């Protein structure tokens, strides 16, 4: 057989925001993902999980510690490190691994921000070292987008709370040791919500695994609380101040999800370019057909525009601003870009894109979870419009 074209890597354009340290971290992440995740991604996805020791391996490179206070084992770093981490993880083409590996990035910020000293000491170092797993549980069978409507209750009983209710679609729900749970401690609406840290093994706490369209490597669960007794010391922040903490959490989550989606979209482009250079149809490489080249150009255009938007917002966040509306719009820009690129990638692969094991096939099954989780597209539009005063 004649020489095949060597596969190309499609790197993000040079960024004015990145220093030599950012690039060094990207290099570390690139090697980490290529050695520790990518070769196993397909197997882990098919098997429905990845080994627990990956958390410790991720702590070895500083991935888990990113953005948490140094006093509790974290590494304080600007948002561009988080973007690099999300986009390099995306190169494995297995969003489920990243979702569970990084579930503490939604579970722990409330603890780091508002938890008592004792709680921080007990929870943060162990999770940031990869020895314990943390998760966030807001969504319930009865409500998701409408966070203020949660029905799980926590009733004060002496030095404890008694928790009753259930949570669903919880990432790392099966394996988490610490779970930040939104509970109703007060009256109706957003003013009656608190965050409480539940722990594996508490009597009355059980879980059921959920099977999903994609993200198979991520354990997702419904959590059941049947009169679970939780020490009041596990309250995160003040009673009935939970809604504010939840909303604060969303900004970081959405920025990270947007970064991951753009990274996955870029991988779709890269995979398609490489496939189209090799695959021949009608006597020519697929990439020599104008229709296919135009698809690639349309993908690249959306990816680079989204990346520029992402980096500009990350810079604003770094300046201490809180561009809520823009982050909502960015998340949609990113998920719609992913949707477009995943579609065109699988289409360009033909049957080979429909067969399990191809990265583009996995990514195709991960489009909807990104467009639904962390704030659904419809909710993002509405929130952005309202924030802008419309």
């Amino acid at each position, binding site marked *: 057989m004649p*020489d095949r074209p060597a596969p190309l890597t499609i790197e993000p354009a040079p960024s004015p925001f990145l220093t030599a340290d950012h690039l*060094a971290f990207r290099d*570390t992440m690139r090697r980490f993902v290529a050695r520790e995740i990518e070769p196993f991604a397909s197997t882990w996805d098919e098997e429905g999980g990845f080994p627990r020791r990956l958390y410790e391996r991720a702590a070895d*490179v500083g*991935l888990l510690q990113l953005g948490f206070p140094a006093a509790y084992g974290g590494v304080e*770093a600007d948002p561009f490190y988080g973007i690099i981490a999300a986009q390099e993880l995306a190169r494995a083409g297995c969003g489920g691994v990243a979702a569970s590996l990084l579930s503490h990035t939604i579970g722990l910020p409330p603890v780091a921000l508002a938890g008592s000293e004792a709680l921080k000491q007990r929870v943060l170092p162990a999770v940031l070292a990869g020895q314990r797993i943390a998760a966030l549980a807001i969504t319930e069978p009865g409500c998701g987008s409408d966070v203020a409507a949660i029905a799980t209750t926590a009733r004060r009983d002496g030095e404890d709370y008694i928790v009753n209710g259930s949570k669903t679609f919880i990432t790392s729900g099966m394996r988490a040791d610490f779970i930040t749970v939104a509970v109703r401690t007060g009256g109706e609406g957003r003013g009656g919500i608190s965050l409480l840290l539940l722990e594996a093994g508490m009597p009355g706490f059980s879980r059921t695994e959920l099977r999903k369209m994609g993200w198979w490597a991520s354990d997702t669960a419904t959590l059941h609380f049947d009169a679970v007794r939780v020490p009041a010391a596990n309250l995160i922040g003040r009673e009935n101040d939970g809604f504010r903490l939840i909303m604060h959490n969303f900004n970081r989550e959405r920025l990270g999800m947007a970064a991951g989606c753009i990274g996955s979209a870029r991988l779709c482009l890269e995979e398609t370019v490489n496939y189209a250079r090799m695959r021949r149809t009608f006597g020519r490489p697929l990439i020599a057909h104008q229709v296919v080249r135009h698809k690639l150009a349309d993908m690249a255009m959306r990816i680079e525009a989204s990346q520029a938007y992402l980096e500009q917002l990350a810079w604003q966040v770094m300046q201490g601003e809180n561009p809520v509306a823009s982050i909502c719009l960015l998340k949609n820009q990113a998920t719609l870009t992913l949707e477009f690129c995943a579609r065109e990638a699988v289409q360009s692969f033909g049957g080979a894109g429909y067969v399990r094991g191809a990265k583009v096939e996995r990514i195709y099954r991960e489009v909807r979870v990104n467009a639904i989780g962390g704030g659904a597209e419809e909710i993002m539009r509405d929130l952005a419009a309202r924030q802008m005063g419309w």
Partner: protein
Amino acid sequence: MKLLVPVKRVVDYNVKVRVRADGSGVETAGVKMSMNPFDEIAVEEAVRLKEKGVASEVVAVSLGVAACGETIRTALAMGADRGILVETDAELQPLAVAKLLRAIAEREKPGLIILGKQAIDDDMNATGQMLAALLGWPQGTFASKVEIAGETIAVTREIDGGLETVSLSLPAIVTTDLRLNEPRYASLPNIMKARKKPIETLTPAALGVDPAPRLALVTVVEPAKRQAGKKVGSVAELVAKLKTEAKVI
């Protein structure tokens, strides 16, 4: 004991190199550069010796353009304590590198110098040996295991027939083979700490070395393209073609 580890900036091992149109070498403009993988193994071994308490300091040295400073940073992020950059735009060949390293060794007085057995760009496999000769130190090349006891070092070498262990008295030169260790990742906290570690910048002139090349490069050409395969109908035809076309039997 102080350890000296030379680290070379080379085209990243994932890059498929392209020959320059004029045959003067391979294209490096706009190409990702990294630390030579064998040098990563050398840094890892040095850092492990420090962690075991056998060594007290690890000094990383790089020779070449200013960007070699980033290669030193990588070594510092892996755990080296400080760096020395000998900055020059001159093309450096192994003999010049060995002379510069000798000058640094005379200043630093390390107990052990650990080098990669070769650099993946020109695959010379020469610098460690030349340096040993210039310094008059014993050498243990292609190391797959090293053990230091007192004033001696036992180096297990990968040779054609198997493994050979030599015992050298310190100070000595060791060059690393692939199986010596698996280098660690430069973690984010260590990347950040590395920024604060000192790098001293010197020049060949300051070290009293003339780095001018002694070898002239004639030309660099791409390897021949692989030919398309052929299907043969029978064993007899295969044997005939191996004799007449491939001329291998």
